[in-house]
């Protein structure tokens, strides 16, 4: 298989314009003859479905939640980046591009990232026009704040609920199209297979989560916007229903999976409190704008924070990275937190947390200002921990948050299956080995509002489509496979619950494929995951039947897929014996313990082709060429 990224010709500033001028168009009268399937209703899926329907395509939209408004984009807190340069602090499209490529540790495609930076401004315009209530200054203009990994203030926000407000904007645009009769909405539906006919993606098969019925839908193109796979770690900031199933089933049908080992550990999460924990809660890293991170200088110092004098505190990020201080990128902040805890200087009952202290900020600006900026985050913290962060420091610890890897796509967002497009976190394309804060919302909306409307027209106009209905052989075969897998899950009737297996897998992943990976650990886990998977299929207990609402049956299918994905993540991590961004290999670090890239060996995208469960997948490489940005070892000192 040859990976053709289809990057347009020309200087980087003109690539997207050049591509738009070459793309074929579908004339307005013909658009209604095409059916487009959009799976997922987060920022990418909802914005794509709405935009395509506005253009005149027939759209079928699917989500696993009871309403499209609940997709997990809703939980993004901090903000969305754009290169508007409203604060007049030196921002530009070029700088947003540069920061994103650098933040991604030079493992993303320059052309994609440049387009993202260019389109970022259109997103803000679009969202404001939809009535998204962004924060404003007293003069009535839009407010900005700074965020990790950047030295300018380019982040637009709506209190601590930016993801919610942007998603509700996209959702309202989607519902307007439902009202106009251009979108058919299918909530509580889980896609379980993509149907490939004559080499093209032509539909999906999935389960109606209310009735258990297996349903088939035919289309001329299929768009997956189904999010990331962080829930493979069991404990993560993902929603409990977040899963890899749609992307994984597409992978098994021929879509290459790119850079699966690139996972992001978020530095500012609420620490784990016990075995019962079902998920971890992130607090926006915008907190690092005003909070100072510290631990005691002495190991095992168990005094309460207010009894530790200033000179016995180690503000380790400010000490080690004087120019970025508490605003170093997420991976650097996370690894440093783990390092000080490993040294025995962690705080709290478990010793697995560090302080995030607002005392100085409250002294400087007053409690009211802090309350306005972070009030809802502080409340959330207090609700979960029972501790008041206005009177003492918060405790934070890193948690799995985002997955930069995903299905491989070309510049037009098409996977290696023709007609299967992948948007948002589900693809791999823009963040390289590490995503900067406030860039996920930007990418999801960029893909959905401004890229796919162009890209899909070119695909549809450039291909002919045979008449196909849902009784075709390809649908029959897919239906049988989906059904037999569900039956198999129910038939095992063993001793351990789906939750037991999910937790066991999560612990393995956190230990060996988490913040720090080593050859020894990865080799070990590459035999342990398949063993766990085998045990799962012999001993899992899935209650109930297929014919009704059955959360455990849903989860069983997802955990079964995670047990396959986990192995691929470990294999990818083992293969990439360099450190880059969120992927830290113990064997590849500088003398100061920083990630050490090996550009000569690893300046490529790893795209894995599926060869069967338990079979070694085939690695394809897409070389990364940097013509505009000079590769440097990242330094935030």
């Amino acid at each position, binding site marked *: 298989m040859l990976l053709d990224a289809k990057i347009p010709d020309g200087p980087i500033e003109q690539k997207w314009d050049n591509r738009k001028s070459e793309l074929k168009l579908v004339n307005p009268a013909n658009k209604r003859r095409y059916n487009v399937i959009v799976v997922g209703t987060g920022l990418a899926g909802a914005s794509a479905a709405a935009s395509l329907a*506005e253009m005149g395509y027939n759209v079928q939209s699917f989500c696993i*939640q*009871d*309403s499209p*408004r*609940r997709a*997990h984009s809703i*939980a993004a807190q901090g903000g969305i980046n754009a290169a*508007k340069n409203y604060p007049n602090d030196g921002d530009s499209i070029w700088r947003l591009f540069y920061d994103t490529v650098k933040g991604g540790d030079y493992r993303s495609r320059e052309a994609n990232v440049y387009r993202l930076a260019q389109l970022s401004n*259109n997103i*803000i*315009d*679009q*969202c*404001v*026009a*939809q*009535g998204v*209530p*962004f924060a*404003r*200054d007293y*003069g*009535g203009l*839009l407010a900005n704040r700074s965020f990790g990994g950047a030295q300018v203030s380019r982040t637009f926000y*709506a*209190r601590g609920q930016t*993801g*919610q407000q942007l998603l509700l904007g996209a*959702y*309202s*645009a989607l*519902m307007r199209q*439902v009202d106009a009769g251009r979108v058919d909405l299918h*909530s509580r539906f889980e896609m379980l297979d993509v149907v490939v006919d004559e080499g093209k993606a032509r539909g999906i098969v999935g389960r109606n989560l*209310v009735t258990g019925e297996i349903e088939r839908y035919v289309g001329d193109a299929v768009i997956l916007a189904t999010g990331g796979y962080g829930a493979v770690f069991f404990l993560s900031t993902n*929603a*409990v*229903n977040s899963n890899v199933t749609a992307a994984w089933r597409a992978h098994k049908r021929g879509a290459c999976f790119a850079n699966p080992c690139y996972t992001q550990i978020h530095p500012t999460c609420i620490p784990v409190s*016990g075995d*019962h924990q*079902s*998920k971890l809660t992130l607090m926006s890293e915008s907190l690092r704008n005003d909070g100072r991170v510290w631990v005691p200088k002495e190991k095992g110092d168990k005094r309460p924070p207010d009894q530790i004098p200033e000179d016995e505190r180690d503000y380790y990020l400010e000490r080690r990275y004087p120019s970025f201080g508490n605003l170093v990128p997420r991976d650097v902040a996370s690894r440093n937190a783990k390092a000080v805890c490993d040294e025995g200087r962690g705080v709290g009952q478990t010793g697995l947390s560090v302080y995030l202290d607002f005392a100085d900020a409250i002294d400087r600006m007053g409690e009211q200002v802090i309350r306005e900026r972070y009030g809802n985050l502080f*409340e*959330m913290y207090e*609700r*979960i921990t*029972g501790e008041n962060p206005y009177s003492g420091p918060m405790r934070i610890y890193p948690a799995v948050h985002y997955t930069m890897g995903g299905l491989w796509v070309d510049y037009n967002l098409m996977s290696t299956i023709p007609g299967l497009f992948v948007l948002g976190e589900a693809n791999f394309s823009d963040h390289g080995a590490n995503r900067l804060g406030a860039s996920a919302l930007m990418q999801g909306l960029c893909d959905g*509002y401004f890229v796919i*409307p162009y890209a899909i027209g070119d695909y549809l106009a450039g291909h002919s489509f045979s008449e196909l209905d849902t009784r075709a052989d390809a649908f029959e075969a897919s239906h049988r496979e989906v059904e037999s897998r569900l039956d198999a899950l129910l038939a095992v009737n063993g001793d351990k*619950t789906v*939750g*037991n297996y999910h937790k066991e897998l999560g612990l393995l992943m956190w230990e060996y494929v988490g913040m720090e990976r080593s050859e020894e650990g990865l080799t070990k886990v590459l035999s342990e995951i398949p063993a766990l998977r085998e045990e799962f299929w012999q001993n899992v*207990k899935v*209650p*109930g039947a297929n014919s*009704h*609402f059955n*959360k*455990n049956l849903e989860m069983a299918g997802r955990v079964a897929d995670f047990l396959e994905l986990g192995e691929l993540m470990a294999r990818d991590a083992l293969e990439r014996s360099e450190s880059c961004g969120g992927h830290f290999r113990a064997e590849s670090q500088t003398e100061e313990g920083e990630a050490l890239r090996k550009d000569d060996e690893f300046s490529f995208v790893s795209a894995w082709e599926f060869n069967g469960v338990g079979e070694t997948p085939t690695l394809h490489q897409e070389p990364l060429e940097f013509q505009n940005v000079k590769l440097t070892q990242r330094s935030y000192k």
Partner: protein
Amino acid sequence: MTLNLHIWRQEGPDRPGKLVPYKAEDVNRDMSLLEMLDVVNQDLIKRGEDPIEFDSDCREGICGMCSLVINGVAHGPLNGTATCQLHMRHYRDGDSITIEPWRSQAFPVVRDLVTDRSSFDRIVQAGGYISINTGNAPEANALPISKVDADLAMDAAACIGCGACVAACPNASASLFTAAKISQFASLPQGQPERSERALRMVDQMDEEGFGNCSNHGECEAVCPKEISISTIASMKRDYVKAALTV
């Protein structure tokens, strides 16, 4: 601690339901209530019984999926808190907890504690948007909006669409949900061109779905996890009356 649970079990929308007693043992005070139910479910599954079905997703109070009536109160005893952020430290050993689904004709039970809230989607579909196609937007800062108006809009926009307002209302009215959206847009200049039609269509849709009317009990505001103000309902009613008289 040990808790005595009484949980609503119902196999489907047309089947009878009943409260079934369960004992939750070794409950840790740092658990959330949903995590306590997770533990109960693990035991039920191991014993070969059907687990209790309930909705939840983000478990951080923003997606609006979780929806339990706890001891008669939608989302339980804490103000401004969704079910998923209610922790067991607010209960004591030996307490009894009754857990039921949202109850409203417009939210039929799917199974156990899971309800169908698609009626909310249909209310939004009837006008909970600003009609702007992708690509048509003017420059964002071309339209200054006073901070006061922007903040008012944000207060209303914080609604998570959970439906607690309906569950708490003696009339099962969806007024707070509908008003939150209507008043968000009414506070903003972008919302003005469609303001009247939006109020008419959304309120009519709310009625058509079988939700009751507002009679100012204020139960909705009391249980709202985002503390949306009942003043949004007053604003919606003014818009509706004005629109009905002029359109």
